[in-house]
């Protein structure tokens, strides 16, 4: 923490609530992290933990109403909360891009693939129709699709190809920050590796910062520099790849690793985390993980822990750990 | 079996709970129920021979008053009585026609969807042809050939409603057939008839119910249209469309004769549509 790094993205105490049918869904409960230029952070957690919501918040795409967003998000030092809708439009797809989870439904079925890529180019760069389509074809070639297939429609592409198109679209304007929301979950295993490799190479080539949203610790190990473990809309553990993998602290993170099969000792049984994530409309008063935690104490039930530093950049939100 | 019975009942309870929240649907339901009761007990309130078809030359074309809330027509008959009795014709014919259509349509639809193949293509070609003639036009054709009678009307309207139910059941049976719980039933050796009756049909009730409500609405409209053209229910028997048709000669001076029967039709159809929409939303909350 000695020198002031240049941050591509700073998120401070981000909270998102949805007000539906007189109930309040607490989707995010104070998330803070910083992403340095050229780095990759992994947001890891179960389905419904708030990972996608975090990604959408950065693009300011949380539907409002019913969503209520508070906290600050700075993209390259600029607070996006203060920007007009028009300024925000010039950031989306240009400075910050997002790859969505399901490539099957992420493309518009009535537009040709090249037109969908050309659209984002025309929006953010001054160029004509013809030029943008040409560039779109170059982008297609870059993600390994023959440029002349650009005139086809999404339904003529396979799942892996569609995800490549989505990636080409996200990268078309060389964004500073790429948010990849489970980019390989919907794909076949063999295709997953290809797409992942491609994302990593392109990231290096463009020198982007990246948020990798995933529940797959294998992907994290392969791609990320830092990792944030998200549980019930909160970061429960944060640290470098080594911190998380080699000196795992939070009981939830331990549980996540315990749910993975151990290839070296296959006689060992899996240790799944018992129970389910709490209902986001009725979060427990204390630690959100406490009902499922093997080490829970009385303090855990009444008092919600905050993130404390336990060495280097390694932070954890758990009463078992003391600052130091 | 007990378990599935429980599931069915709780599904209806769930639907009813959602339906109760929908104000429009509840208003529709209340009005439909009131209309039913009025039609059922019309004989208690009015005497058919004196109030509905009996002519009274002392009270020709009276404006609405306490004695005759909707006024009287060119033969001195009470318009309110005629409108309430008129609902009998509309409700009876449309219910009979749509029930007939639903039974026949669902039967062929289930066969078509479950067995597929040649049976399916034959049934589908026939429904294509029936769908190629608009309901009103088909009824007009039949009435033109066979003359106006309640029976002709019911048959004509039933036939034109068959294809909708047939298609509806066919498509839901087809989706059901491929689903896992049917595969499972077949795997444990259930008979075809058991599969259709116990496993497929209960899951098709919802869309059929919605279509039933909406079909009743459209059919009442068609009946009144036909009567307006003089091809439906014949005078002096009261029917809403026929009332409107005869009101035309007095429309300029006696507007109430035109307004009330029309309002009666519109209220009925509106309630049925509100109820049908509400049912659809309640049965499939995803669509909302």
């Amino acid at each position, binding site marked *: 923490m000695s020198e002031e790094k240049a941050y591509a993205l700073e998120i401070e105490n981000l909270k998102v609530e949805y007000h539906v049918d007189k109930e309040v869904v607490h989707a995010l409960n104070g998330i803070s992290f910083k992403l340095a230029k050229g780095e990759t952070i992994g947001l890891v957690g179960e389905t419904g933990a708030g990972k996608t919501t975090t990604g959408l918040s950065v*693009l300011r*795409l949380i539907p409002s109403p019913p969503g209520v967003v508070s906290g600050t998000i700075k993209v390259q030092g600029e607070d996006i909360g203060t920007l007009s*809708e028009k300024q925000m*439009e010039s950031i*989306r*797809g*240009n400075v910050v*891009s*997002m790859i*969505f989870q399901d490539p099957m*439904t*992420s*493309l*518009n*079925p*009535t537009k*040709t693939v090249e037109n969908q890529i050309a*659209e*984002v180019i025309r*929006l953010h760069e001054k160029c004509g129709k013809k030029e943008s389509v040409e560039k779109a074809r170059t982008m297609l070639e870059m993600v390994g699709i023959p440029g002349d297939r650009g005139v*086809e*429609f999404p*339904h003529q592409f396979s799942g892996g190809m569609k995800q490549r198109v*989505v990636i080409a*679209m996200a990268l078309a304007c060389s964004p500073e920050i790429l948010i990849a929301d489970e980019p390989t979950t919907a794909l076949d295993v063999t295709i997953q590796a290809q797409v992942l490799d491609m994302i990593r190479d392109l990231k290096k080539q463009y020198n982007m910062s990246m948020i990798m949203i995933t529940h797959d610790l294998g992907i994290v190990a392969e791609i990320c520099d830092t990792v944030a473990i998200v549980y019930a809309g909160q970061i429960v553990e944060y640290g470098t790849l080594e911190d998380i993998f080699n000196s795992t602290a939070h009981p939830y993170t331990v549980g996540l690793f315990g749910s993975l099969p151990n290839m070296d000792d296959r006689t060992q049984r899996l240790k799944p985390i018992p129970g389910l994530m709490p209902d986001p409309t009725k979060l427990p008063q204390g630690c959100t993980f406490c009902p499922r935690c093997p080490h829970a104490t009385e303090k855990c039930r009444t008092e919600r822990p905050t993130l404390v530093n336990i060495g280097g950049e390694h932070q954890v939100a758990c009463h078992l750990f003391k600052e130091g | 079996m007990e378990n599935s019975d429980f599931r069915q009942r709780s599904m209806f309870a769930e639907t009813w709970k959602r339906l109760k929240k929908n104000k429009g649907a509840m208003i529709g339901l209340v009005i439909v129920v009131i209309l039913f009761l009025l039609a059922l007990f019309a004989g208690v309130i009015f005497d058919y021979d004196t109030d509905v078809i009996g002519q009274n030359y002392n009270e020709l074309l009276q404006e609405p008053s306490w004695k005759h809330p909707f006024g009287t027509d060119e033969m001195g008959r009470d318009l309110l009585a005629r409108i309430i009795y008129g609902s009998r014709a509309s409700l009876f014919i449309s219910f009979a026609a749509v029930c007939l259509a639903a039974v026949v349509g669902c039967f062929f639809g289930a066969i078509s969807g479950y067995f597929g193949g040649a049976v399916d293509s034959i049934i589908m*070609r026939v429904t*294509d*042809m*029936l769908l*190629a*003639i*608009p*309901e*009103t*036009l088909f009824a*007009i*054709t039949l*009435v*033109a*050939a066979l003359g106006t009678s309640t029976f002709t009307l019911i048959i004509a309207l039933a036939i034109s409603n068959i294809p909708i139910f047939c298609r509806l059941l066919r498509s839901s049976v087809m989706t059901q057939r491929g689903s896992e719980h049917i595969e499972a039933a077949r795997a444990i050796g259930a008979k075809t008839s058991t599969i259709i009756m116990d496993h497929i049909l209960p899951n098709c009730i919802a869309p059929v119910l919605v279509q039933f409500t909406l079909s009743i*609405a459209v059919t009442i409209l068609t009946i*009144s*249209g036909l009567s*307006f*053209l003089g091809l439906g229910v014949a005078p002096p028997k009261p029917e809403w469309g026929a009332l*409107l048709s005869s009101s035309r000669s007095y*429309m*300029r001076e006696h*507007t109430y004769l*035109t*307004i009330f029967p*029309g309002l009666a*039709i*519109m209220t009925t*159809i*509106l309630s049925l*549509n*509100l109820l049908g*929409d509400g049912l659809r939303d309640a049965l499939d909350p995803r*669509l909302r």
Partner: protein
Amino acid sequence: MLKYIGKRLLAMIPVVLGVTLIVYCIMSLAPGDPARTILGEQASVEQVEALREEMGLNDPIIVQYLRYIWNLLHGDFGTSYQSRIDVSTEIWSRFPNTIKLALVASLISVVLALPLGIIAAVKQNTFFDSFSMFIAIIGISCPTFWFGLILILVFAVNLKWFPVSGQVNTLKGIILPALTLGFNSMAAMARVTRSSMLEVIRQDYIRTARAKGVSNRNVILQHAVPNAMIPTVTVIGLRIGGLLAGAVICETVFAWPGIGRLLVQSIQSRNTPVVLGCIIIFSICFSLVNLIVDVLYAFIDPRIKSQYQ
């Protein structure tokens, strides 16, 4: 594309044949002997029998039907029993009026319904949404002829802005009939446009478009609307078909000299050949509208188009 249109056209032929056969058979059930009708009550049984033979009425029904279709293909609808006037002349002189009415009504309903449905969906749960959907549900619940009568009462009788009965050749004369005919379809189209827009707006690719930085307006106009049109067009087609049937009633209300009114008059005068001709014309138009919709469908849904390239 041509292949697709060709295929749809071919598929239309058996449907039209089936429909005309059904209609022909039903009409042949009509009581009364046409030969007797033509010759009158005084004619002898031999005379009637001779005429029946001459008219081919003793042939099996299917032969009579095929002969009818054969003549129809040559533009001959037969002769009217009473007036012995050529039915074709009668139908073709009225046909343009019905087409004119149906076209204006379709135009009015589409032009009003699409923006109404789109805006209602975009502004879901606002006053505009509730209000336009209220109008729409009134529209589908209101009998065509009653709406026509009320329009006449208000705008023709009281305000005197428009003529009481339709005038075929003036703009003023067509407005009330077309509004009457189109109101119901407009309402139905607006409802379906709204619900398919709501469905589309929720799709992932709309979120993708927003994430690309497309402005709100263009997300709706360029991404949502083209997709929402796919189910909407089907309903538009069905409704325009239904409009033809509605024309029968509407023409009667406004004394509009089209085939709908001709049909009703012919039924009352038991003029079977004219009735048959009118219904067959309506059915063919209905099938043609469906064909046009199918073709339009291929233009907006690339998934169908690409099957035929």
